[in-house]
């Protein structure tokens, strides 16, 4: 016979007793017997085949989780103590101070308020700074998720090599993840992609294959798919059609925002692959059912850097436009004006697509009487330094952005 000491928080389930008796040779048997005698205790102390998360079970002064768990043997005459677990903390998410891999530092990006960009004091705009991921963009989440999903399904194994049509952030993120996990990576991009992008990818260890400039981004996709068909060694993650892309935002980006804020009325993100809007939007709608999920979309024919990497008219398979509540068209000029304001007023050095998101966030904030708007800033401005738009007059900006394929 084993004596089980019951804390005040659970005594209502055992008729008010301070301690009760149960029998069993292991903690599991003792708790099963206890639940049989006092069924109301069941849900409180057992869950998913183990000890429930909010209860601690002690034997001989030790937490059984540090012993053999439910299989810990209970010597006859020993007392089992149940106590209510208690944990919490101030609102910042807890994270370990030391990481064992750079990949552990993907995600958990900060949210910062943008008081100087908000059009009215009753509406708070928060920016989620995805530029603080290891390679400096939101695509670290997507690259890590796509590669790990392919490893888990068995599709990606040692000996295979990665191939992706990209000259942008996704390539750099894939290059980091591939290099740390030991897979070779080849990126296919139009030959007129900027020198800094080709250099950056090579520095991260990727091979670069060039497609004809005249065919644009679609040419890079065509060439990558042809290469993949001719050689089964290639694994093409293809972020536009990979379900791990929105899932990374459902489990990461969206869940982090839901955990950090008590209220979100509008979520704004740039529309590229649709991964951020689909994944984070779905997760936030679960917590905030009335949320407006808004896409910042480049004007047709107006390639806002970082948002339009394939040609006009292409709808990525992972994008379901019926789940977007708003689509706001943004011109290059508006994006550039907003990205300059972001730096001048709030000290945030964002990329051009961050400017597009901020432009839309400001506009939708203006439509609210009060509330909370969250804008996802996909990257920082570092990779766009050679673009003239930081200081140049607006018409030069337009020319500069149209003459080069940035993504």
């Amino acid at each position: 016979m084993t004596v089980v000491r019951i804390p005040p928080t659970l005594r209502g389930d055992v008729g008010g007793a301070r301690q009760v008796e149960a029998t069993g040779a292991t903690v599991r048997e003792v708790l099963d017997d206890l639940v049989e005698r006092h069924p109301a205790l069941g849900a409180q102390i057992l869950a998913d085949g183990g000890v429930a998360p909010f209860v601690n079970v002690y034997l001989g002064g030790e937490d059984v989780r540090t012993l053999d768990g439910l299989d810990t043997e209970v010597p006859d005459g020993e007392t089992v103590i149940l106590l209510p677990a208690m944990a919490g903390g101030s609102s910042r998410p807890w994270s370990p101070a030391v990481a064992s891999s750079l990949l552990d530092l993907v995600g958990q990006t900060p949210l910062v308020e943008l008081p100087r960009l908000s059009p009215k004091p009753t509406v708070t705009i928060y920016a989620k700074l995805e530029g603080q991921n290891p390679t400096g963009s939101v695509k670290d989440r997507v690259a890590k998720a796509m590669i790990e999903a392919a490893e888990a399904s068995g599709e990606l194994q040692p000996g295979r090599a990665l191939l992706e049509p990209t000259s942008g952030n996704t390539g750099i993120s894939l290059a980091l993840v591939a290099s740390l996990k030991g897979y070779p990576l080849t990126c296919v991009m139009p030959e007129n992609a900027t020198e800094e992008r080709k250099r950056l990818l090579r520095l991260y260890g990727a091979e670069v294959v060039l497609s004809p400039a005249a065919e644009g981004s679609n040419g890079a996709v065509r060439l990558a798919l042809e290469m993949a068909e001719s050689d089964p060694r290639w694994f093409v993650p293809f972020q536009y059609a990979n379900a791990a892309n929105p899932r990374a935002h459902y489990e990461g980006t969206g869940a982090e925002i839901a955990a950090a804020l008590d209220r979100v009325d509008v979520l704004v993100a740039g529309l590229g692959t649709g991964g951020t809007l689909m994944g984070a939007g779905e997760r936030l709608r679960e917590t905030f059912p009335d949320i407006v999920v808004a896409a910042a979309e480049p004007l047709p024919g107006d390639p806002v850097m970082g948002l339009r990497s394939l040609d006009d008219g292409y709808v990525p398979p992972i994008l379901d436009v019926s789940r977007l509540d708003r689509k706001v068209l943004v011109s290059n000029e508006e994006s550039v004006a907003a990205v300059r304001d972001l730096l001048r007023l709030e000290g945030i050095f964002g990329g051009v697509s961050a400017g597009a998101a901020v432009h839309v966030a400001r506009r939708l904030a203006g439509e609210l009487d009060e509330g909370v708007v969250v804008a996802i800033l996909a990257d920082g401005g570092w990779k766009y330094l050679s673009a003239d738009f930081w200081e140049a007059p607006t018409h030069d900006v337009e020319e500069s952005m149209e003459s080069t394929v940035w993504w």
Partner: protein
Amino acid sequence: MVIPASVRAAIAEHARRELPNEACGLLLLDGDEAVEYVPGENASPSPYYFELRLDPVMWADIGDRDLEQAVLHSHVSSAPRPSRTDVERIGLWRGRPYVIYSVRLDELAAWRIGDGQIESVPLRDGAPA
């Protein structure tokens, strides 16, 4: 809830001693009056997180005294208001008194958290009215 100056001083002293991390412990209440503060150990030492650890036999013995237990923890710099983490991790302490001390503001506040609802519990310092 009444928290006498001597108990408040014990809480503040423990919270400052644990800086830069959050401190936690048990506040024992007789009716609505706090009679004792039992400092605990923060098993996940962090400025943003706590996990209360007390000797289990001592804690079970406390449970056999006819006193109500309130969890106390400190926020290093934010206001003494339950965070989202606090609400999500309330567990079996749902509906029970829950006290937070802000070290930076030197402020105590008491709450009850249940089913996502946060209710403020008025505090008095126990000085004669």
